[in-house]
């Protein structure tokens, strides 16, 4: 079976610096791949290439078996590749439904004439997708600012799911969360996986990565230095690979 998303021989340079050197990796549907590496290892650059933020100098991207050009974040979104950034890209002054539907608002006719926001519809749809992912938000009318870090993360995930993401990239999904919330987010990741969505998780939290990832890809100084099945490795080995204490390829 082919990968849901595959990148081959990606190279990305910033001036004289090669941030990503000839990296290839693939993710199956319903699989979670943990992308690990120290600061500056090239993880973020690699995912920005996949999500359309940076064009790659060399290499190919295949999505659902076909070669694709991802020239902009919107092109990635249109394909169903969603990225949930650390800063979440939510409008904190708006409420949950407004964020889930941001840029794709549902409209109705006001007095049969003018198009206005259909807030009732957006609210009930939001409720449905939150229930589907088993997520509780105290009040949908609360601004995002009033929600906890985990709840914000959940809203960002719901937004992707509602718009039928097939592939989700999560950048540090559990950073800055409390213990209970970290667990909740990891549960959500497992639920997404069971829906057949392909997922890349970037995280510094070794424990979290081991808890959800099926496979680990380790990067160092822009290169992919190792790939391991999670069940066949252990945190000690992985830390060694990240810092370069062992030279195992």
């Amino acid at each position, binding site marked *: 079976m082919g990968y849901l998303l595959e990148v081959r021989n990606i190279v990305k340079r910033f001036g004289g610096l090669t941030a990503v050197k000839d990296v290839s990796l693939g993710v199956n549907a319903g699989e979670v791949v943990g992308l690990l590496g120290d600061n500056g290892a090239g993880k973020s650059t690699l995912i920005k290439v996949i999500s359309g933020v940076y064009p790659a100098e060399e290499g190919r991207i295949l999505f659902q078996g076909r070669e694709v050009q991802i020239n902009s974040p919107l092109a990635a979104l249109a394909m169903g590749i969603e990225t949930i950034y650390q800063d979440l890209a939510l*409008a904190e*002054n*708006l409420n949950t439904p407004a964020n889930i539907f*941001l*840029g794709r608002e549902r409209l109705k006719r006001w007095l049969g004439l003018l198009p206005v*926001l259909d807030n009732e519809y957006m609210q009930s749809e939001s409720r449905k997708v939150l229930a589907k992912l088993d997520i509780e938000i105290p009040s949908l009318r*609360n*601004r995002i600012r009033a929600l906890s870090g985990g709840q914000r993360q959940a809203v960002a995930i719901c937004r992707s799911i509602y718009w039928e993401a097939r592939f989700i990239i999560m950048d540090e999904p559990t950073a800055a969360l409390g213990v209970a919330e970290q667990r909740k987010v990891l549960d959500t990741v497992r639920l997404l996986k069971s829906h057949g969505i392909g997922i890349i998780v970037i995280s510094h939290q070794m424990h979290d990565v081991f808890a959800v990832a099926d496979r680990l890809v380790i990067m160092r100084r822009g290169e992919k230095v190792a790939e391991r099945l999670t069940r066949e490795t252990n945190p000690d080995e992985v830390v060694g690979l990240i810092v370069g204490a062992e030279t195992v390829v």
Partner: protein
Amino acid sequence: MQHPLGRFLARRWALLFLALELAVFSIAGRGFLSLNGIQIVLFYGTSLLLLATAETFVIVTGGIDLSVGYLMGFATIVSAKLCAALFRAGLSPALSILLATVGTLGIGLVPGLLSGLLVGRLKVPAFLATFSTGGIVYGISALLIGGVAAKEVPLLANAIGNSYLLYWAPGRGLSLFSRPEVARGVHVLEFVPSMVVLTAVFVGIGAWLLRRTRFGRHAYAIGGNLDAATRAGINPGRHLAAVYMISALFASLSGVIYMLEYVTGKADAGVSFLLDAIVAVVIGGASLYGGIGTVGGTVLGALILAVLETGLRMAGVQTFDKFIAVGLILILAVLIDRFFPELIHKED
């Protein structure tokens, strides 16, 4: 929040303040709490209301519009000159007033577009862009007027600007818009200045636009998180251009109304309203950091200031005391915003 009433109660400190003001001035100022007193508040409040509504649109997107006062002055002159020119060219008074109004609103969009492009496309800070635009507009106003007030505006302008929605004369019953002919000394009751009605209609449209439409929702998103808005496919450059043009439209309208009321054009007609307009928006619960604020709140803020201004004047207090009061209110509002944001910012 769905109930406008509920949202108002969330800002109840402002409502309470308004009630307190009304109570104080009713006792202190003779004739304040009367049909006339209230209508004077509304009449003087129209300029402020329109400029504050203009400002609300821009503040919601995280900017500020320092040109609204200059734009209002510009519009008083343009509309007066246009109206007089059309009238001289042989058009009927009504038609020349109508065309002058439409023309002024159209011309007023140009400086709005300039500010909007500077802020949206070229990423110039809003206060710089709008202050520059305001300066240019003020200069053009002075050139246009050339030291002489615009003359020969048809008398009908004055009649429209100072008309009322309803009149009641003893023995003649009610009449709409036109003052009944009565003998000298007979008192005619007047209800709701026409310009207040016109203002209310436009402010209502503004409130609807910001609250109910996709356009409004995107304005909030841009003010809340520009990155999020961009990633959601919103084009901030185009959107901001439209927002500054709407602001300019409201400012120009307030200029046209001023011209109809006073039958003259003055470059600095709106200058003294700028601070009040911004303060009204902030009192109304908007955040100067962007993303939060409603036209409903702004109306409340503008009423508080209009009552203060008129009330102090009717109580015989010097008007510079008003500036002290406005400053104190602004500090109070900002402190509440800063230390008790959940009071006003929890729900939208």
